[in-house]
């Protein structure tokens, strides 16, 4: 008990220093939490991709070159029993924009009959699947995209494709996929797109109205099947007019994420530097504290306090200081992105920042570690302090 009072008095005797140190630890922890939250969001998205055991087949020449949609049947023929390849769904990219909004959307036309089976992670209800199968103009919009534009289930919306036919297309929202990990992409039916394309008089070649997809998703039963078919599919189409390149979905998505600006890597580096800053700032304070209190430490020891107790007292003081800073630093982004209008601020790639309590908790642990690291050297030198010499040296 007495030790606690001593600790408390020590922390409060120079409020200015305590405050400044708290701030110097809290701000880096804030940055850390924000960076970690972004990386965490991307990781969860990628982990889901990995769990789904899907392959993505694209044209070897480049991603904008299409593949014949008949490839679906050819890939199916690799596994006539349907026990290893459970479902195959081709997709065609149309990008898209909402009238008068500059931001490009991510919208895909899908082979609707296979969509629900290939993407169980969209977690559509039976009723939604039925509406999707019934209505040719059905669209499933990403939950974050829906939130951004204020779209609700049952709404009728219009999207201008970025590729032919270019003319606005009308859709009926059958679901906003609230539980899906992919919160951005919108999916609609390929047969609707092909119908619209056929209406356009001059259809550019390379864009023949039907029979083309941009990529094909192949859902496998097990990890072994995934590895097996990744090679088997490319071998089947080798030396054909449309050679393929097959990735697992995680690698495919990751390529997209890192191509843009390798945000995860840059944020990781930033977070590491930030932690370094916090350690240095806290170590500075602790070394100044101990220096100022050299005679006190000597007195403590001469009163019979053991060197481990002295070591411990200083360590705990630093720990408390940094934990306090860490708690403030973690609380700021948590509150800001959970309870204020900031939570609707769109962040690229993950769209909406979700600061999960687990990330905050991790940062708190890191703050505590910072505290221990920062005090290591000052505490050690205090513990080894030679009583007589230090009392002699000080006035």
């Amino acid at each position, binding site marked *: 008990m007495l030790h606690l009072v001593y600790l408390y008095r020590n922390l409060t005797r120079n409020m200015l220093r305590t405050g400044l140190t708290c701030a110097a630890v809290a701000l880096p922890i804030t940055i850390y939490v924000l960076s970690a939250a972004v990386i965490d969001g991307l990781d969860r998205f990628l982990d889901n991709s990995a769990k789904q055991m899907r392959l993505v087949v694209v044209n070897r020449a*480049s991603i904008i070159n299409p593949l014949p949609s008949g490839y679906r049947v050819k890939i199916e023929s690799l596994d006539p029993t349907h026990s290893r390849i459970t479902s195959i769904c081709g997709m065609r990219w149309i990008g898209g924009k909402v009238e008068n909004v500059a931001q490009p959307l991510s919208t895909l036309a899908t082979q609707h009959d296979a969509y629900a089976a290939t993407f169980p992670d969209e977690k559509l209800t039976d009723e939604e699947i039925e509406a999707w199968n019934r209505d040719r103009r059905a669209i499933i919009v990403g939950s974050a995209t829906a939130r951004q534009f204020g779209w609700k289930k049952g709404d009728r919306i219009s999207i201008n494709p970025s590729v032919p036919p270019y003319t606005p297309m009308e859709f009926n929202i059958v679901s906003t996929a609230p539980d899906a990990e992919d919160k951005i992409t919108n999916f609609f039916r390929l047969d609707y797109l092909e119908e619209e394309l056929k209406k356009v008089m001059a259809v*550019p070649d390379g864009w023949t109205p039907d029979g083309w997809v941009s990529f094909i998703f192949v859902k496998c039963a097990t990890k072994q099947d995934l590895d097996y078919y990744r090679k088997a599919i490319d071998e089947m189409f080798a030396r054909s007019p449309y050679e393929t390149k097959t990735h697992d979905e995680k690698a495919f998505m990751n390529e997209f994420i890192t191509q843009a600006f390798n945000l995860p890597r840059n944020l990781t580096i930033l977070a590491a530097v930030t932690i370094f800053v916090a350690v240095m700032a806290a170590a500075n304070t602790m070394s100044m504290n101990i220096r100022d209190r050299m005679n006190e430490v000597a007195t403590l020891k001469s009163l019979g306090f053991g060197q481990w107790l002295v070591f411990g007292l200083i360590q705990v003081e630093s720990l408390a200081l940094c934990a306090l800073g860490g708690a403030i630093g973690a609380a700021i982004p948590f509150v800001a992105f959970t309870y204020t209008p900031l939570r609707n601020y769109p962040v690229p790639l993950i769209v909406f920042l979700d600061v999960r309590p687990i990330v905050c908790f991790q940062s708190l642990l890191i703050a505590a570690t910072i505290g221990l690291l920062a005090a290591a050297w000052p505490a050690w030198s205090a513990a080894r302090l030679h009583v007589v010499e230090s009392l002699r040296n000080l006035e």
Partner: protein
Amino acid sequence: MALPLVYHWRNLFVRKTTTLLTVLVLAAVVGVFTWMLGFSDSLTRSLSTASDPMKIIMLKRGATSESNSAIPVDEYAKLNQLTEIARDPKSGQPLLSPEMMVQVSLPRVRDGGKTWGNVALRGVTEAAFAVHRNVKPTGRMFSLGSREVLVGLAAAKQFAGLKEGQTIELGYSADRAYTIVGYFSADGGPMESEIWGYLPSLLNAYNRSMYSSASLRLMDGADPEKVIEKIKGPAIQLEAQTESQYWQQQSRNVTNYLLITRLLVGVMSLAAVFSIANTMFAMVAGRTREIAMLRTMGYSGRHILTGFVLEAVLLSLMGGSIGCLACLGWLWFVGNTKDMFGASTFTTLAFEIHLTPDTILWALASVTAVGVVGALIPAIRAADTEVIRAIREA
């Protein structure tokens, strides 16, 4: 007379640990700051070469980039009715360049081919070199008769298999070998990340009969906005943008990321301010008697104030220099080649991060500002020291 500089310099080494730790904090902040500044400068530099005000890019209505635009030849022909197009002084032909844009997937040199990038492949005619004035072949042109291409200098550096004399498989089924016969420069602009070949030959290879986009050069004195209106109007009905508008849109994503990084670095600088303030408060508190002595010797409060601020600035500059050096070292050892994805081009724009003297000056100026802000309050407190009491008590 102000306090001698050497007094402040020596004072920094009285409390070595504190000085070292503060310098390290500043170095870390400045290191990140410099990298970020270098990144956005290099990107801006690359994009600013692509901001020719007299150049207009035309796309199909609704298309968001050259990659997903398709202009039929008869619609392209309507552009000839524009009277504001500059003409080639020799041939009298309008400077109007039909172009085709596709992509080819190539391995990156930077990570030994582990990842691949989408390199833009542009089919052009002779007119393109007059419209895109900054594009200059370093050697000979591709010939119109055989399968030959030129490669942008940035693309040649960042992607494998693009050296002069090598062949590259292009075409719808990637089965036509084109020989690379030389390079071209584009003043470091985005086009330097592209591969250029003869339009009819590439149209054929990719089984196309439509252009992707068209670019034109305006004659002197023409108003770009008016021409854009005309192109968008009922007679032509194409989407038109000046070159800078086009690239601003394509770099929107990256500008967003940079905004976030900038915000985070701002927060970090604030942490550095607190850290400096902490150190300076300790310095002032530890030297109360010394300050009182200086006051009795005749130095004024203002001298003391500037003295402490100066000490903080010295501290900041030390940290700043180490930070800049660390950043240079990082770029040197880890690599300074970057490429970014256009918002909707799906092609990569390659560039190199170079730290210019301007960037370094900016970084040092900012860290000095951080030092001054952090030291101000402690220094004021030092200047306000009451002489008699300080000497009696300390």
